């Protein structure tokens, strides 16, 4: 991987020399250093798997596809400089980045400069709502994810009509906050009573005060949005303060395999929403899982899958475009109708969104130390385990 980045970052000089191979270069702006590098590495691995697949299948328009990767150092100003740098290389489109604080300014600049952007990681609603004709997102957004959670809650309520109250706990970062906003809206819309609603500053490691408050409210449902570090601390401290709920959902944090390693038995019954899982009932999932795993040497997650997805979408549009002119590539992107082992991709305008794939998110539940897909029913691999037993009986 390092070699690839080194080559990619040298490419301005390589381009200056007379090029023999007419490679097609795609721009990538990814967080490879700084606080978001954990996610950047995973997206990178996913893109590389897609790149190998595409080039083994004959490349794009008969030419090998090449990634021009630029690091954004997990900050917006570097990403903007990277756009200019890729613009000089005349790339037909750019994929990027993880955080909304970086992707937001990117989307604004690229819309004005009319460069197609395929969103790599950022799931914030604000990127595609109102969006722009130049910005495309194949993965989910805050509304889709929050709706998946509440669809899942509704599904549980069909079995047990005593489900009424929900307590919400979320970090004060952009993604948790937007998911909490959507959650609050949906709770009201679907008739759940919000009995606790607390946020915490990122870097907090003691959740006992909040969890103790929740315990006295005895919520039926727990809706938690937390990054990996916080998710583990929350799960451990829930046991510690003896906070019980009939169903527990922890977004983002609980989706990583490391969550199960770190939390152990306490992770059982926890549900989490992802865009992809290794046991989802799509064609080619097993093969993709094996290749992602071979690439990283670790258990792959939806992050790698989303990286893979973004490059597949890019390659598909470049193949179909009338030319490699950006406006043609944009038109091709807008007409995308692609089946991948990650999800089906079309870009639509609906409910104020633009260039958004109305992707079906999956609800995973942790059962016997594994993430298994339990909802929606037609994509599920296993039955939901419900209700969550109280701690003292586990």
């Amino acid at each position, binding site marked *: 991987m390092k070699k690839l980045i*080194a080559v990619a970052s040298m490419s301005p000089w390589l381009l200056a020399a007379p090029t023999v191979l007419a490679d097609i270069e795609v721009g990538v702006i990814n967080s490879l*250093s700084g606080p978001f590098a954990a996610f950047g590495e995973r997206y990178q691995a996913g893109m590389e798997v897609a790149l190998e697949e595409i080039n083994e299948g004959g490349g794009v328009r008969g030419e090998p596809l090449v990634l021009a990767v630029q690091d954004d*150092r997990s900050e*917006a*100003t570097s990403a903007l400089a990277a756009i200019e740098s890729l613009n000089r290389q005349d790339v037909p489109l750019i994929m990027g980045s993880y955080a909304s*604080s970086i992707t*937001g*300014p990117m989307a604004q600049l690229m819309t004005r400069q009319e460069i197609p952007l395929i969103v790599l990681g950022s799931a914030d609603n604000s990127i595609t709502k109102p969006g722009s004709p130049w910005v495309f997102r194949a993965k989910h957004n805050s509304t889709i994810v929050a709706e998946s959670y509440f669809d899942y809650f509704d599904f549980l309520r069909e079995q047990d009509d005593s489900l009424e109250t929900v307590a919400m706990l979320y970090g004060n970062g*952009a993604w948790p906050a937007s998911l909490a906003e959507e959650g609050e809206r949906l709770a009201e819309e679907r008739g759940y009573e919000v009995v606790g609603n607390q*946020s915490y500053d990122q870097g907090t490691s003691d959740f006992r005060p909040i969890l103790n408050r929740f315990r006295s409210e005895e919520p039926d449902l727990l809706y938690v949005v937390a990054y990996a570090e916080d998710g583990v601390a929350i799960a451990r401290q829930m046991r510690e303060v003896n906070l019980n709920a009939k169903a527990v959902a922890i977004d983002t944090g609980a989706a990583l395999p490391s969550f199960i390693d770190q939390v152990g038995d306490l992770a059982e019954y926890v549900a989490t929403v992802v865009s992809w899982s290794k046991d989802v009932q799509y064609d080619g999932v097993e093969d993709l899982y094996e290749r992602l795993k071979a690439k990283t040497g670790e258990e792959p997650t939806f992050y790698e899958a989303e990286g893979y997805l973004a490059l597949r979408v890019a390659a598909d549009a470049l193949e179909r475009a009338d030319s490699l002119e950006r406006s043609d590539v944009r038109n091709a992107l807008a007409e995308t109708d692609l089946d991948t082992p990650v999800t089906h991709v079309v870009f639509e305008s609906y409910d104020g969104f633009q260039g958004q794939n109305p992707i079906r998110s999956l609800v995973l539940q942790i059962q016997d130390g594994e993430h298994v897909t339990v909802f929606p029913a037609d994509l599920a691999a296993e039955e939901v385990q419900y209700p969550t037993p109280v701690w003292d009986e586990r």
Partner: protein
Amino acid sequence: MKKHYVIFAGLVLMGIFYPRMFPGYLSVAITLLLYAGWATSWDILGGWAGQVSLGHASFVGLGAYFVAVGTSHHEIAPWWAVLMALFAASLVAYLWGRLTFKLKGPYFTLSTIAIAEIFRLVAINEGWLTGGATGVFIMTLPEPFGLDLFSRQVNYYLALAFAAITVLVVMLISRSKFGYQLRAVREDEDSAMASGINPTTVKLKAFMLSGALTALGGGIYAIFLSFIEPHIIFYLLLSVQIALTAIIGGRGTIWGPCIGALLVVGSGEIFRTTFAEANMLIYGLLIMVVVIFMPRGIVGEPARYLIRRVYAKRAQS
């Protein structure tokens, strides 16, 4: 002193023609000019008055939020929003200084971190005021004289003007009575007081000027990014970056902060594209090496050397 004005005029002239020569490198240049301006503003308080602040992101944030929230939530034209931000920033600096100027040295520095953190939490939690944790987009801006404020060229000239104004202010200060008062307070507050200077008033003036100018840059920054999030804009690391830029270049010098910006932003950009994942490591090492071998900054160190030589010659003759 005259030579400083000549250098200034020459640099501004070069700045004006830069976009023609390097039209594909505007984003880096804008970032560099913003940091040059912020570091120069910071230096009025940190270098000339000797009060090291690690809370200047608050002023960047004030400027940025007035412009972003003003234009997108209240339909206030950005220039009025900037004006309001300048006023607000001066007021904040006044109260802030009143509260903390009795603290000395590291105590003052740490208190600035605390206050800036409170600003960050308010910006995140008071969504009705700021748009909250999910941030604010600037989607449309008015077009004065047909200028598209979003275009990189316009951003660039705004940033150039900002950096030029701050340097000009510092050049004027350096030879004014106020400048001498600042230096007197920096060197020894008690002696300054003995010679009839009120240190608190002098420091307050410096803080207000420094804060207001930083907010001006913050307003331009908001337009440049056209999407701001409280975590990024009120972040401790931004404060640190601003102070670092000024100190590496040379505190209390006219050109130090600009040289610092050239080094910090320039090397950051070069490292980003050449060292891949290791770029921040190299950047950290660079900071350490510069500070160890040039503790008074890149401009400060040779200046000290020259002054010493002059004195040595005088002593010989």
